[in-house]
């Protein structure tokens, strides 16, 4: 089964808000911790090794191709 990258959320904007909101009042370090835990929780839920590998590859590829200004927190 391939990784789904076409729209698949029940309610995309609502999820997006919830994701940001999950980080409220967290320090930067805590946010990193949350992200890591979320990855692990969702990865287990997905389970399928093929899908997970594709997701990892897509994410890594995106990081490596991203122009430098977007990948840092430093904006004007």
């Amino acid at each position: 089964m391939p990784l789904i990258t076409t729209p698949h959320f029940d309610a995309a904007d609502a999820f997006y808000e919830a994701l940001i909101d999950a980080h409220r009042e967290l320090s930067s370090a805590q946010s990193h911790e949350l992200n890591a835990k979320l990855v692990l929780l969702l990865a287990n839920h997905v389970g399928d090794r093929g899908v997970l590998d594709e997701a990892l590859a897509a994410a890594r590829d995106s990081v490596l191709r991203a122009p430098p200004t977007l990948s840092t927190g430093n904006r004007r």
Partner: protein
Amino acid sequence: MDYQKVVFPYRRAPDQGARTPARHPVVVVGAGPVGLALAIDLAQQRVPVVLLDNDDRLSTGSRAICFAKRTLEIFDRLGVGAGLVDKGVSWNTGRVFLRDQPIYSFNLQPETTHERPAFINIQQYYVEGYLVERAQELPLIDLRWKNAVTAVAQDDNGVQVTVQTPDGDYALRADHLVACDGARSSVRSLIGQEAKGRTFRDRFLIADVKMAADFPAERWFWFDPPFHPGYSALLHKQPDDVWRIDFQLGWDADPEAEKQPERILPRVRALLAHSAMKDAPFELEWASVYTFSCERMASFRHGRVVFAGDAAHRVSPFGARGANSGVQDAENLAWKLAAVLQGRAGDALLASYGPEREAAADENIGHSTRATDFITPKSEVSRLFRDATLQLARDHAFARALVNSGRLSTPATLHGSPLNTPDRDEFEGSMMPGAPASDAPVRVDGRDGWLLRCLGTSRFAALVFDDAGSPAAGRAVRALHQAADELAPLDVLLVAADARSRVEGARTVIDAAGLVTRRYDGRPGTVVLLRPDQHVCARWRAPDAAALRQALRRALALP
């Protein structure tokens, strides 16, 4: 005998006066657990062995202490299993703690119906001591202490070995030279080879502490315990009230300073202070600081020179895969060398040792590397995920399965070995070609016993499943003997529900609990063929003699 103090006398061997170098079929270098196991196995198969060791003592310190079930089964075959299991501390359970909370426990042997436990803990010097005593019973083993190999040269006719002794140098010739001389193998450097892999930037203190303590016989592993914050610790029970404690120290620790008692004692006191044994007296017996590597030789066989154990491959200790895989290397090699030397097989059989055990080493290296990465994360993000996993494990079962404080040694299934005959019939369960044979309780000759004990020492064996004298079983037994004729000695076991089953040419084992049938997915007429090292090489529902013969030939790497 105090195995920590025994000194074996150097004796001048008759070879040392020979005018031309004496020739031996097999010379083994290194009388550690692997070299000794190999020598005993070969001698039991009537192959004479010269076993050279550059020292005259057994292992200093407890070193390898966790001996796995498969290794114990091999030790049973070598005649030392019972003594070691009696002396050793059996254990099946591991517990993992984060800070002061238990987060996870695992049982390495949920099936209790096996003769041997998942592990015993016993100091390496006991293992070596018992193996040496066994070797001394076997006249075909010529064990030479204070014999150090200083040169190795091979040609078409054999290997010339130069040996240094207190009496001066002498030369030997061997048809086959097996290097079991450890992580810093001199044979390996002498033939210009290396082991390649990865060294982990961390250090661990290992200490043997003698104390009357109440901890259970379980493997306890701590992440970030209050007595050693920010690092890991590990506790194992050994015989003689000796406890093995490992403390992670970090890369920047000074190994010489950390070995000093004044550094070690407070660490032990801190561990005890957090337990019910706060003020228990203890004594430090031995300590060492080590770094670890996962590495192997690209090829374990170089012509007539073969490598086994740490000389061939090395792993970090989390998972107890070092000595255990080395003893399993020896078992794989012994029957092949014997078959070749006794004319039952050709060089192709010996050539199968390398790929089979290189694949096993890769499996062990993979597991050990993953465990080490989890225990000693080497980047900020690796540590982030590691800590996230540990914290999730408190509340979520999936995360407990990810917590990796060591995946404990299990014997490799030799998938894809050319000696296997691929299944053509449907089978369930794990006794596939390449798998080490599973033990099971049986009744034999009117007594309770164990399946693996019924397998002849280092011979091919076949399990034939019967159902009250079904003709299929009788046919299978006859076909087996026909197939094995002039190929290899073969023991045939008739696995039956009760004693009424008797077939000439087979020994009846009664599967009273039905566990042989279950574990092997046996049905009347099923045949499972086992190699002399107790790995399955073929299985069928109703084979004919031609199929059986082909499988035996294949297992011997005959064309």
